[in-house]
Every structure is written in structure tokens, then in C-alpha cells.
């Protein structure tokens, strides 16, 4: 179990992270520059927090009050760098051997791990002779051969071509499931995070929101930042008015009694024609006009707004086949109660 509670002043913002991660995959999700990678670096010991406490499986790695700051060599953390950081002057075998801490039978151990990670055919190749996927497998083998107490992955797929990603992602998912210690996983890709992680901490400008279970976070994000990172495209200001919520940017009043709402959101694929919805579920329905239509790979994106207004458009996304059956557009669009996100 990892306990990390640190503060570090960086140019532009202050890192203020408070997380606890058990066994399983915890994702740190945030826009670039939100301090995700710096958090990993502080845990690994290659950057020093200004103050705080880091504890791994009961072992104190850093404590500013007790003046404890273990060097990275003594922390036993596994850190997968974005570009894998293989040593260019060493072969695959030699690279994996650097991760072995005991002195006996190093070559045999390294070769065994190479076999597990399907790179035994390349043992004597240098990193520049490997493909992106082979590099990643070599780097992971090099890390796991030392049985680290935690595994930290910094955007592991950023350096790969997209067609390689899905294949490697499945391999990595299997691997992460069998890893007996906490895994911290940094990414800004919501789909990747959803597929690979169990819990998610959203990071925003150096601060993290409380860790939540991934399904709960995607279903009901609490903040604007979390909603945006989980892919909600329509987020606007809202005002609570007793039994209604007024949403000026959409030009509607939502039939929902909820106090202290600052923002509301609705996912682009949850908007439905009013005729297809159960009347009791509708929070608001409105006649609309199409501002713009974009054809995406598998969906059609309609930018719509309330008819006869000049409001900023709402994004409405549907599968292409639904678009084909919708040639005769409905009269009104409906926003359903269960799909409205209340955000702060």
C-alpha cells in the first residue's frame, strides 16, 4: 500500500498530492502539466518534494519532519518512463540484467524474464534495433525482474504508433492484474484509463481529487475537470432556482430541484429525441436547429442549439446508423434527468 502526501512548489503551480493506493491499478488522470509525472518522480525519489510523507508497504521513503529521504536506489520502485529509457549501449539481455539486485545467476534470470515477455529472440540486439513494442516489453522486464514494491507507468503508450497500442494494452492489462503490489498509472487518455485501471484520481493544477472507483467516476464525476477528462463535452454554468435549474447557455430550465449547482453537463451521446423518451424522465425538451454537422469515424456529430437563438452550440453525437434513421429530424430534443451531471 502506498501513502503519498506531498507538497512541492513548481514554477507556475504548487503540487499538492494526497493519495493512498492499494493493490490494483490507480490511475492519475489529468491534463498535461497537471503534475502527474512529477508525483511519480517524487515517489521514485528522483525529485524531492518540499514537504510531506511518502510510505510504501509500511516503509517510510520520505518524511520531511523526520528528515527521511531515501535515495531512489533504496526505494525499490519500478518506474516505466515514457520513452522506456533503455540504455543504448547495452543489449536487451544486459539491460534486463541491470534490474537484477542479487549477484548470482543474473544472466539466467534475465533470460527467463526475456522469455516471459517474448523478447528472448532479441537478447543480443541493441535498443535502437527494437520496435516500439519490443522496447516497452524489454523495459517492463527490466523493471519487474527486480520485484519492485510498486509499479509506476508514465504514459506508457505515448511513444507508440496507434495500431500497436491496443495489442500492447491488452498485454499490459494482463500483467497489471497479476502484479501483487500497487500500480500507479499516469495518462490523459480517458479510454485507456477506463480499460486499464480500477480507481482514478483526477489531477488538476497539481492537486488531486479524492480517488474514486472508475465506474463511479465516469458515471457521476463531481467536478468540471473530472467531467471533462472523462469525456463530457457539454459543460455549462447553471443556477439553482428552487424547483428548477436555469441553464442560460442552453436556453432551458431543467425540471430538477437541486441546490447549489454551479455547472451542469451532459454527455454528447446521451441526448435523445423527445419523442423517444418517457415523459416523466425528461428534465427539459426544446425545439432545435442544426448549426453544423461533422462526420466522425463511427459517429455523426451534430452541433445544435435552441431554435431561433444565438446560443453556443450543444454537441450531440450518435452512431452513423442512428443518423441514417433520423433523416426526418425530430421536433424536439430531450435532456433526461438521469443523464444530467451536477458539477462544481
Amino acid at each position, binding site marked *: 500500500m502506498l501513502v503519498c502526501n506531498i507538497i512541492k512548489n513548481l514554477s507556475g503551480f504548487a503540487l499538492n498530492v494526497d493519495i493512498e493506493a492499494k493493490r490494483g491499478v490507480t490511475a492519475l488522470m489529468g491534463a498535461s502539466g497537471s503534475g502527474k509525472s512529477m508525483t511519480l518522480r517524487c515517489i*521514485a525519489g*528522483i525529485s524531492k518534494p518540499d514537504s510531506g510523507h511518502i510510505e510504501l508497504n509500511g516503509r517510510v521513503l520520505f518524511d520531511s519532519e523526520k528528515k527521511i529521504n531515501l535515495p531512489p536506489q*533504496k526505494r525499490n520502485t519500478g518506474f516505466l*518512463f515514457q520513452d522506456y*529509457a533503455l*540504455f*543504448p549501449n547495452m543489449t536487451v539481455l544486459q539491460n534486463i540484467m*541491470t534490474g537484477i539486485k542479487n549477484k548470482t545467476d543474473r544472466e539466467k534470470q534475465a533470460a527467463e524474464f526475456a522469455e516471459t515477455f517474448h523478447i528472448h529472440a532479441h537478447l543480443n540486439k541493441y535498443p535502437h534495433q527494437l520496435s516500439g513494442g519490443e522496447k516497452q516489453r524489454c523495459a517492463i522486464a527490466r523493471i519487474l525482474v527486480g520485484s519492485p514494491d510498486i509499479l509506476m507507468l508514465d504514459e506508457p503508450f505515448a511513444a507508440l504508433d496507434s495500431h500497436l497500442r491496443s495489442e500492447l494494452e491488452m498485454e499490459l492489462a494482463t500483467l497489471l492484474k497479476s502484479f501483487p503490489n500497487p500500480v500507479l498509472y499516469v495518462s490523459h487518455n480517458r479510454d485507456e484509463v477506463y480499460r486499464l485501471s480500477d480507481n482514478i484520481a483526477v489531477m488538476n493544477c497539481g492537486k488531486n481529487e479524492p480517488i474514486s472507483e472508475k465506474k463511479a467516476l465516469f458515471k457521476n464525476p463531481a467536478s468540471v475537470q473530472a467531467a471533462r477528462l472523462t469525456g463530457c463535452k457539454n459543460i455549462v454554468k447553471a443556477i439553482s432556482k428552487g424547483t428548477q435549474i436555469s441553464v442560460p447557455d442552453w436556453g432551458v430550465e431543467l425540471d430538477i430541484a437541486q441546490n447549489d449547482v454551479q455547472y451542469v453537463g451532459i454527455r454528447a451521446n446521451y441526448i435523445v429525441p423527445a419523442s423517444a423518451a418517457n415523459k416523466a424522465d425528461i428534465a427539459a425538451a426544446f425545439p432545435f436547429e442544426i448549426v453544423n454537422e461533422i462526420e466522425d469515424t463511427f459517429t455523426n456529430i451534430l452541433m445544435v442549439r435552441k431554435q431561433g437563438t444565438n446560443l453556443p452550440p450543444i454537441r450531440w453525437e450518435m452512431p452513423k446508423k442512428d443518423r441514417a434513421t433520423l433523416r426526418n429530424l425530430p421536433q424536439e430534443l430531450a435532456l433526461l434527468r438521469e443523464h444530467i451531471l451536477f458539477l462544481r
Partner: protein
Amino acid sequence: MDLFPLFNSLRITVIAVSIAFVLGIFAAYAILRMPQMFKSVCDTIFAIPLVLPPTVVGYFILVSLSPSSLAGSRLLEWFDIIITMRWQAAVIAVIIISFPFIYRTARGAFEGFDQNLLDAGRTLGLSEKYIFFRILLPNCKHGIIAGTVLAFARGIGEYGATSMVCGYIAGRTATVSTSVAYFWQINQNDMAFYWTMINLAIAFVFMVLIEIFNKPKVRV
């Protein structure tokens, strides 16, 4: 034909550049880890022989090591050693003059090196010594070798400081560059020409070596 000056030059330069090689690399490594303020001060001091006239370097060596100086008189009294006007004095001069070439190229190579690789080594539990000798140095070797060749070329042709600290004593302190000046001064033009040709040949060899080592292997 007496080839002593060539032998003497090679002896002086090999010893001096070997010492400057170790000093230059460690100075470059040390400066990487220094706080910013010390860094610029030390950097200036380390690089200053590059722009200083060699005679000034020679002057400092004489003032600090000649038998009439404080340190020089101690050396003579305690160890019975005289450094100036011996070939060993030229070694000291060449160390100082060739040092910045190695220091600066090593520093450039270290700074251009991917710091993530060093950090990766640390998280893998590798010692700082292992990281320095087995990761940093091997990956920076092209830059460092090019700098060393340059230092060697500069050292073997060193004249200003060498002639001040050990003069020209045939068969004892004569070097390839001081020979040219000496034979010219005593009107032995054919000998001066002969040593000039040797210097040209050495220079040519070094230019070829620099050209070879400056071209890094293509890495994809």
C-alpha cells in the same frame, strides 16, 4: 638524425593529456551536480586557459614552482626535486592548457545526455558509480574522444608555456615545437624546416583523427 624532441613531445603530451583526461571528466561531472552559482564561477575558472596566452600560464608555473618560490623551495628542500627547466614542467603546462578542451567537450556531452537514463538507472537500484562508468561515460564517448584528440593536438604543439618553464635543452627538454624556434634562431634553416615538416605531419594526422571521431555513428 636526433629524434629526441619527437619522443619528448610524445612523452610529455601522453602523460599530460592522460591526467587532463581524468581531471577534465571529473570536473565536468562535478559541475553538473553543483548549484547554479558555483557552476558559473567554476566554469569560468576551468575554461580560462583556453583564452589565456600560454606565456601567462608559463609565468604562473614559474612563479609558483621554481626553486626560488615558496612551494618550489619546499620541494627542493624536502624531496630534492626541481621541476622547472625539466621536461616535467612542460607536463604541468600541457595539463593546464589541454584541460579545458576535455572539460568542455565532456561537459557538453554530459549535458546533452538524456537525464531520464540516469534516473532510470537510479530507480533500478544501480549505484552512482555504475551509472557514471557504465551508462554515462560509454554513451558520451564520442564527444569525449573528439575532445581528447583536440587536447592532444593542442598539447603536442604547445610552445609558449613550454619554452618558458623548461626552455630548450638539447636531449633534455627539447620538443618538436621548441626545436623549430631554436634551429631558426641559430640559423640552421634546414633543421628548422625538418622539424616544421614533422609538425605538419603530426597536425595532418590529428586533423584526420578529429574528422573520424567527430562523426558519430548513425543511431536510429
